[in-house]
């Protein structure tokens, strides 16, 4: 009985807050049929935006994943005095408004920024180019892997790692053979969340992107542009593509993690 009540409560919450909005987005994307959806998605600017979004996520998410696992390891297993500060620093990026994140990057790498003149003199473009967009994306999706892996690592404990170490395994071997398999679900969910956030990030990226259509326009920026042009089908269709990207990430991470089980 209690089980069914819990299930219904969870379903009700999910339906009102999540299922309805998502369903209405899908409905509007396909309002003019599959052909209408396809025409909206096959625009050259939309395709370019899709590739750019994938590229940015393709760089930012793996970097964040590798960093996240190492950072979680340090947070859980090391005996550093200042690791609580480290833990706090990992969470803080979220509390900064995305617009301020973008602005901070401009203050660092823009023309009048700290490194701007040096970068300009060496012909390196960070802001209004890929590196700036990747940095902004990494900033806003940094905590996910760390925060997913830390609790799992704590919960599983380190007996197995200790056993491996006692049996003469190198730290590297221990990590690949013992630690990683035990935290794989944490890593998987962390990657899924980072990727979803990386796909959908708008605020921070919009400041450092320069919004050049077909050049530095990511898919969320494209969605914004479509809305402003009263092209609702185009906007909802591109949103559905973003949702599908997130789902694809989830399924592939699930499959990978399960394979290792």
């Amino acid at each position, binding site marked *: 009985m209690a089980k069914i009540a819990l299930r219904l409560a969870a379903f009700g919450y999910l339906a009102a807050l999540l299922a309805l909005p998502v369903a209405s987005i899908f409905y509007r994307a396909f309002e003019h049929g599959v052909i209408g959806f396809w025409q909206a998605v096959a625009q050259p600017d939309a395709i370019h935006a899709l590739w750019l979004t994938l*590229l940015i996520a393709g760089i930012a998410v*793996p970097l964040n994943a*590798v960093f996240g696992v190492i950072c979680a390891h340090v947070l859980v297993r090391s005996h550093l005095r200042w690791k609580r500060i480290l833990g706090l620093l990992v969470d803080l990026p979220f509390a900064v408004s995305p617009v301020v994140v973008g602005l901070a990057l*401009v203050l660092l790498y823009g023309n009048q920024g700290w490194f701007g003149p040096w970068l300009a003199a060496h012909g390196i473009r960070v802001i209004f180019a890929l590196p700036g967009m990747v940095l902004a994306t990494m900033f806003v999706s940094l905590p996910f892997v760390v925060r997913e892996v830390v609790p799992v690592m704590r919960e599983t404990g380190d007996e197995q790692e200790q056993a491996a170490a006692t049996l003469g395994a190198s730290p590297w071997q221990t990590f690949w053979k013992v630690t*990683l398999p035990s935290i794989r679900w944490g890593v998987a969910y962390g990657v899924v969340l980072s990727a979803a956030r990386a796909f959908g990030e708008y605020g921070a990226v919009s400041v450092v992107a*320069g919004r050049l*259509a077909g*050049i530095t326009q990511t898919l969320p920026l494209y969605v914004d542009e479509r809305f402003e042009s009263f092209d609702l089908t185009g906007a909802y269709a591109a949103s559905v593509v973003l949702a599908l990207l997130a789902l694809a990430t989830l399924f592939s991470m699930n499959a990978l993690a399960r394979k290792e089980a």
Partner: protein
Amino acid sequence: MRIALRALPAATVALALLLCAEQTKAIADGSVQLTLVAYSTPREAYQDLIKAFQATPAGRDVSFAQSYGASGEQSRAVAAGLPADVVAFSLEPDISKLVAAGLVAPDWNANRTHGMVTDSVVVFVVRKGNPKNIRAWADLIKPGVDVITPNPFTSGGARWNIMAAYGAMLKRGASPNYAIAYLSKLFDHISVQDKSGRESLQTFIAGKGDAMLAYENEAILAQRNGADVDYVVPDQTILIENPVAVVKTSQHPEQARAFVSFLLSPQAQVIFAAHGYRPVEKAAQTAARFPQPRTLFDIGFLGGWDAVQKRFFDPQNGLVAQIESSLGAAGGH
């Protein structure tokens, strides 16, 4: 998982290399590409204008990269290094910022239109058939009237709206104190302050509010896109002037200048007019036939943007901040 993680660094490097290759390809291409950085409302007009420019001898081999966004944001982006050849903003101070940054020549407005490329006026967008019968500024502060305008601190368009309201009171013979009292009442009737003009329009179309303060061209665009709205040009309103300028650091100054002079040509002005903008060019004006408000004033009537920004829109001590503070303290809204 293990294999995937091992492959990740390699994949990342490959992706980065791919991108570098793409960038060099773009440079090696060689044809002239102008970058237009503009505020968001004239996007549709520029699609047509660029096509028309490319059909002229001066524009034949010119392609365009385009960026549209909030005027203030776009101005800051260009100042921070966003490469641009031509900039088009919603209000003059955004160009002035680039003059201060050394990116636009100080004499940018020394032409016959004083640097402006389009005009418009502030209008009231109302529900179809104007059920609340909103015709004049005084109607906006009648009981039960719900007004929408973007946030004047985040939106250039909203500043035009506020100054239109203030100037309209002065033009009707009110004292500055009365005009400020009017603004205070108006703010008490404002129920939503979106961050941009387009978002306000979305809010209004979504069913919120009885009247929305907006550019005339936005109202025309909304109607043209099937929104169920009417608009009213009040008897007293402000003349909105939108500037355009060539950026000094342009790699193709000749083509950039050609594009700007094309924008001022009768042909281009007619295109602007078709998109709801009031032309700055005489010949196109007569053809377009926009309703003429009884009293039209410009920002100069209120002392110019420098004075207005300081007096009204300083985020800490400006009049608008004070009005909102007093309303907030009184538990208003």
